[in-house]
């Protein structure tokens, strides 16, 4: 029964990933990231993604702070933040977040405050979406690992 649960979880994960790929939320980079995960570093993906969340939230906070400073927005600093955000998003394959970052950076380069605010909102939205989905994914992953690890080794499953 639990074996069935593993299969279902795996299918669910695949479906979720497929949806995310289809929506363009993620790209190939995420797959490559997953490929890097092996026995030597079993939690590599979640580790990286957690770092990403941590960093990103910091960056988002900073960006919001910079933008809400009505008197003077430091667009240069904003650009640096955005570059970082973009770099890390590219690394984990968060395609849509990265795209929004590109637009945001373009707006910030033009000192377009309204555009920046819009982009920031969009960015926060995208980021929340990504975060929720990835959390969902990792939960499933955890359940799968638990389920798989608790019951049978791999060969036995095949015999079923």
């Amino acid at each position, binding site marked *: 029964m639990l074996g069935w649960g593993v299969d279902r979880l795996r299918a669910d994960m695949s479906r979720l990933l497929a949806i995310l790929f289809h929506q363009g939320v993620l790209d190939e980079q995420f797959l490559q990231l997953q490929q890097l995960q092996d026995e030597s570093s079993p939690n590599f993906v979640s580790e990286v993604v957690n770092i990403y969340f941590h960093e990103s939230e910091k960056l988002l906070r900073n960006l919001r702070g910079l933008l809400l400073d009505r008197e003077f927005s430091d667009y240069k600093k904003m650009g640096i933040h955005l570059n970082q955000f973009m770099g890390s998003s590219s690394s984990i394959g968060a395609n849509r977040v990265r795209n929004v970052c*590109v637009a945001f950076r373009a707006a910030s380069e033009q000192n377009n405050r309204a555009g920046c605010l819009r982009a920031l909102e969009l960015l926060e939205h995208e980021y929340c979406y990504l975060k929720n989905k990835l959390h969902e994914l990792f939960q499933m992953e955890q359940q799968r690992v638990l389920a798989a690890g608790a019951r049978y080794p791999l060969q036995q499953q095949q015999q079923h």
Partner: protein
Amino acid sequence: MTLKMQQSYHHSVAVKVNEQQVGTKRGYTFIQANRTWLPKVLLLWVMAMALLSLTIYNGMDADNRVRRKEVLGSMCDQRARILQDQFSVSVNHVHALAILVSTFHYYKSPSAIDQETFAEYTARTAFERPLLSGVAYARRVIDSERQEFERQHGWTIKTMEREPSAIRDEYAPVIFSQETVSYIESLDMMSGEEDRENILRARATGKAVLTRPFRLLGSHHLGVVLTFPVYKSKLPPSPTAAQRIEATAGYLGGAFDIESLVENLLGQLAGNQAILVNVYDITNSSDLLIMYGHQNLDGDLSLLHESKLDFGDPFRKHLMICRYHEKAPASWAALTTAFLFFVIGLLVGYILYGAAIHIVRVEDGFHEMQELKFRAEAADVTKSQFLATVSHEIRTPMNGILGMLALLLDTDLSSTQRDYAQTAQVCGKALIALINEVLDREKIEAGKLELEAVPFDIRSILDDVLSLFSEKSRNKGIELAVFVSDKVPEIVVGDPGRFRQIITNLVGNSVKFTDRGHIFIKVHLYENAKAMTDTKVNTCLNGGSNESVLTSGSQKFKTLSGCETADDQNSWDVFRHFSDEDFRSDASINVTTNNEASEDVGLMVCVEDTGIGIPLKAQGRVFMPFVQADSSTSRHYGGTGIGLSISKCLVELMGGQIDFISRPDVGSTFSFTAVFGTCKKNVFNNMEKRNAEALPSGFRGLKALVVDGNPVRATVTRYHLKRLGILAEVVSSLKLAAGSCGKNGSLTSGGKIQPDIILVEKDSWISGEDSVSSVWQLDLKQNGHTFKLPKMILLATNITDSEFDKAKGAGFSDTVIMKPLRARMVAACLQQVLSMGKKRSQGKGMPNGSSFLQSLLCGKRILVVDDNRVNRRVAAGALKKFGADVECAESGKAALKLLQLPHIYDACFMDIQMPEMDGYVFKSCFMILDFNCSVIYWLYFLDR
């Protein structure tokens, strides 16, 4: 978001079109701008022409009129003069007659004249008075003398009404008369009013006087009567009127029948019919008395000419009025001229109008076309944009599909499921490749494609391409070979990906369309290639062409596989030039490449095949996108026909040209040129080192003997061996090889080469099988000596199992190298043969591609420098995966600290964009510190 962008794009396109339309409207010409006026202008023109021709007509008509008037005047004057002359002549004769009467009737006594004499005389002299119908003499008889007179003559005096005259003071009965007027004898002239008046005036003046015109008695014609006084005695020199009356004896009268006489007169003159003549007595100016002509005026009344007539009677005035009988005829010349002028004017106007209309139409058409062109261009741009967008949009879900398929393949699948999934993945990859191609084309068309400029090794790229197609070519039994001239620098700067794309495309096409023979890729320096072809052409012109030689009865071409190729210029003669030069001038090449450092180098790449060729009629559109040579081609061979057009674009971007020569059923030769940069050696030393590492250097100094009857093929083999540092000698047959070996065997010191390896082409082996044994024996013989045995290697494109066994039996125990030849593959084989392969740690279950990386990175200590924690972690993870020992640094400064000498790192990966100290700054610091460590930048392509 993309949709929005597209909309805005559409909008901008529309705006652009509108602007352009406005712009073109401004560009209308004068005619175009005033097009509504054209019919009015035409009408105005026609009216002006009509007016002008009317003026011309009037002018010409006025001339005519003047001339007509002149003619009329002269004719009229002529008539008047003649009439006057004739008249005066007649008057003179009547005068003479009067004198005659006075002389012979009164001065002679008795009178010499009686009626008979007078009648006869006047009848005989009538020719002198053509205007007079007759003359008569009337004697003055006073009433007192009447009785006497009547008794004397025997008749009574009668009045004009032929009644006996009443009693009067005076009478003037006619006593003599011409026969023509004999009816007036005995008539009293004084009884007629006109005559009486005349008589009174004549005897008072003593001159000829005329009556006013009246109907003559006998003829009832209009006429005048001329009267002369005849005096009894001679008059004093200046007689008074009373004296004259006193002296008057009688009157001589003559009747002018003006009507008939003038008619006679005029009848003699030219132009009689044309004009009408009227003669008037205008003594009483208020009452014109007509003497001749019709009373009611007809004929042309518009033009009259009056001529004065002087008939010698000062009391009476006469006038001749002439006019044309008919109205002036219309002047045809003037009419025709004016009409023609009008017609010509009309035609000219119409032609101008037509031209203007035509111009307007053409311009309208032009503007329409321009607008359509703009629209088409806009549509084209939109299409490209759309295609790019759509391709991109397709790519995203496709990535999802592929990713999921990859995930799927990682799961436990039954073999059937795996097969399905793999098929799906292959298809998906093909689709992605196709979309990428389309995207590429659109990108190139939109001018968005930019070429990279990174140093790369052209030879290894070509080897890669060769390995890509080796399987296919082997299956088809085609020779596939590459040859790069030694003059081509090791490392060139350009876009390796795009270069590979072009080559792959060309070779792929060739492989697709070739079923026998060979595919041969040649790379030369452009200048050399050109010079060589020129010399080749010259030798050809000199007549020394020997493209083909007869071997065993069949025609063999000196090409890679002996098959004929499309491009004669790339034949063996030229090729030999290259290769010979390459091998001869080894030393000088390095010098030249050094000299040419940092300059651009033009490469000429030829891909020669012996395939089906391109049909002549399709050769013109080979480079057009989506067009294949033949629609049946896509059915036969598949493909989209986009590859060549992309290649063309890429070649043009690389500053070169692509061209081809193709002969159906013989083959095609595609050649393109491309300009690459050469790089300075010191900068890319590391790079070169790495490349050198790629090819094992353990073979340097080895000697090899290549046995091959085909010089081209042998040259290719020699090229690959040379890249490995092996000195190769070519002999054309096994016999010769055996000979050379034997010589070496016997003469230990004087031998040219002592081959470590003997590479034998399969063809040569089969053709010269007998001599293998001799070589073999030679080997045995040499075995006795201290010499190493040369390794025997067979080169083959395809080989059957039986052939393989046979080869083993014949002495090729060592190995068989399957073509196409690649330096690295040859190296691997030689390593195996010479058992000098390094013990390299192989990855456990890694796929082939990463095994190299694995071997490269395993156990290496690598420093990763990035300010981005996520990236750092990912990079570290990736490198660890390949067995590297990774340490991380957060900033350039920290990295520099870690890299203080002596350090332990083999490599350092770094983000090029970092705050504080970016990659460039870091590098310069690094150079100063002169670390012995290769730095590789880790570039994030953020914008892609």
